[in-house]
């Protein structure tokens, strides 16, 4: 990690080689986050590229008060939000994955992969605030406190948003589990 800190410091001082290494090192992390955020590879690639550009201009503002990866999550999520905003100006929301649209109840439980896909699709439909809190905490394993720091909100807000998100997801999936 020291090596990472050094790299960040170098890049913040304007060393392009260090910056390049840094981006290369974290590209996959950002890409994964972006994929979870938007649910398809194409958009995830675009979002990750935008996030990389944001990183180029915004690295100076990383003060080291949270983990670099947490900070990157936030940057990626912001890139994702901006990207969708821009996208919506041109077209309607990206077409949802047709597989995920299939009737939720069929075979859902027997095929856990498909089930996961549906959950992910539902997560993606959550309001941005809830979605980002949920992803950071549930998927990336951050504590509510860490997530709050990364997102720049209060810890209670994170807890509240996760609660709200859980409520929505449960409403959607409990129902169908009962019939299943």
């Amino acid at each position, binding site marked *: 990690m020291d090596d990472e800190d050094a790299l960040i410091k170098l*890049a913040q001082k*304007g*060393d*392009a*080689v260090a*910056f*390049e*290494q840094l*981006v*290369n090192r974290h*590209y*996959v992390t950002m*890409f*994964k986050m972006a*994929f*979870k955020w938007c649910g*398809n*590879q*194409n*958009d995830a*690639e*675009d979002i*990750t*590229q*935008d996030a*990389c*550009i944001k*990183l*180029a*201009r915004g*690295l100076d503002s990383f003060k080291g008060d949270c983990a670099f990866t947490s900070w990157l999550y936030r940057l990626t999520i912001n890139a994702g939000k901006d*990207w969708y905003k*821009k*996208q919506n100006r*041109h077209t309607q929301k990206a077409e949802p994955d047709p597989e995920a649209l299939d009737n939720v109840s069929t075979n859902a439980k027997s095929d856990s*992969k498909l*089930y*996961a896909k549906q*959950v*992910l699709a539902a*997560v993606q439909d959550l309001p941005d605030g809830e979605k980002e809190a*949920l*992803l950071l905490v*549930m*998927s990336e*394993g951050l504590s509510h406190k860490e997530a709050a720091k990364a997102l720049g909100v209060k810890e209670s807000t994170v807890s509240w948003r996760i609660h709200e998100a*859980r409520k929505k*997801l*449960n409403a959607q*999936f*409990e129902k169908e*589990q009962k019939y299943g």
Partner: protein
Amino acid sequence: MDDAQLKKILQDIDVPEHDINEQKRAVNVAVSEFKAHQQEKEKKSQGSSFLSRLMGRNSQNGRETMEQKSNKKLLQGTAMLVVAGALFAVPFMYENMYETVGEGTTNSTAGGAGGNNFSSIATNISTSGASNPFGNLFKDDQKTTEVAKLNQVELGLTDGSQTRQDQQPASKPAPEMEMAEADMAAVSPAPETSMVEGLVANRAMKAKERKAEGFARHLIAPVPPQDDVHQGYYKDEGRDKFEEFNVNPFKQVSAEPVSTFSVDVDTSSYSFMRRQLNNGQMPSKSAVRVEELINYFDYNYALPEDASQPFKPTVTLMDSPWAEGKQLMQIGIKGFEIDGPQPKSNLVFLLDISGSMNSPDKLPLLKNSLKLLLSKLNDDDTVSIVTYAGHTGVALEPTPVSEKSTIINAMDNLRAGGGTAGAAGIELAYKMAEENFDDEAVNRVILATDGDFNVGISDPKKLEEYVEKKRNTGIFLSVLGFGQGNYNDHIMQSLAQNGNGVAAYIDNLNEARKVLVEEATSSLFPIAKDVKIQVEFNPNAVAEYRLIGYETRHLNREDFNNDKVDAGDIGAGHTVTAIYEIVPTGSSAVSVDPLRYGDAEEKTETATADTDFSNEIAFLKMRYKLPKEDTSTLITTPITTALEGTAGQEQKFATAVAGFAQLLQGGHHLSGDFDYDDVIALAQEGKGEDTFGYRAEFINLVKLTKATNQ
């Protein structure tokens, strides 16, 4: 569904394997954005105009990239077009080549697009026979002619309409895909193989076509995680960087009688502009440098009678074709041609093999370009190859040209891609040049890149200083630019300027031949360095003047006599043309009103002066240094009214090019009715013999531009 379940689902989400090319692209974009950001910061803190001149940058670039990327559907279409456009030039030029080899014709003009005149390469190469290892590459005649024909059938297009195709908006994926496939079939032998060889080795054609199809599909499909993603060529867009400048304004002779600038023999602006126009895009204004467009062409100016002087000026006067009541004063110089044995060369190629070079118009073209250059060198010249940005290292130890096969092997083994190592490629290159340093020879590092300057010194300013320092030890630097999308014209120019070398942009093999073979002596063998021009106008004859172009080569008046101030260099046979537009005193075209006050004193001063100089319009002074000298020599000549009407065909052609360039820049100083047709008419008048067809190509380009803009 409980928390643990949800956690598990979210953590185990099946994230597809990321596309390595997407990563490279994103990283490249980010790095260039990063560098731009650093420069902006620096600019803010230092506010140095010198620095901004060297490193200024269109800050929109990164954002444009984002904008372009945001509309993926459009992008996919455009990407296809970019690839199709880039590839199209390749089979096209080969068609010509094969026609010549197969049928023995010398029909060299084939429409306005990229690759005419290939016949001459083919003839050059094939006639040099057994001594030339390239000769046999072209002897696989029958089959290759067939391939060429096949391409034509598959494309179903004539030469002329191909360019039109390129301009179509990205709305028709199907035909474009066919085009890409057809093109791929021609170039398909994977990026790392030489194109020439690839074409000849058409036995494996079928397999390669399949590969090509896969590639084309890969581009169209929403990028499924496939194993063969590495086959995709690198594509880049919207990061080309050009130095911004303002077009020179008219200046009043009474206020500023002296104009000083450095010569410029670079031509990259022309080839870059040509490529864009052929793709149906208008080049951005900052990409059009009038002087580079003019100097792209060779002009038949008088040579010095005395060999002790490297060149002499040819000055002419003609009426301005684009403004009533104004005149054009042209200063042309041509460096003497090297007679007798070509000086020895010690060349070190510093080649960018980063992932972004993995594109048919980059590394494969580069390899073939270098092979062309090789054919021009003598047996006792030495060549070494250093690579950077992919795998930094020595790809070829200094090798005499007599061992051609070793050199060619080393070139063929170059592969683009791989991680970016920050090792000091440039230092390695200079080390090689130093090891083999020959006082009698031309010692030169030739840097070839598509815009990635990760040569080990990341700060552009430091890099320039380094190159400058090495220049003083007698090792010069030339820069060859390739590709489009991330073309960093800016750094290229300043590096070449600091390294006493030329910056050339190579968009196709024809251009490579022009730069590296035809102009090999001029690009490689400087006959004069730090060539500066100063013109003092006579206020009694000229009211106003404007230097057309050379905006980025402006020098201060006092720089002229200061031998420490660096300026442009002239190689053997180089021609340089500068055009002033002047407004004679008393002409109705004078744009600035005379001053009401303070003029009287000046009058009396000049009144005594002009008794001697009454027929002089201006006084021309030039300074140059011989390549190995540190003190400059002065050449002077008065420009008199006797030169009026002396402009001939060469001057007319140069004027046509200047007119075209100014139209592309928006034509601030052109009268409203001067248009592309006037350019064409002028160029036709000045076309002359045009041995290689460059002037004909120019005329076609103007026609194309006219059609595009209608």
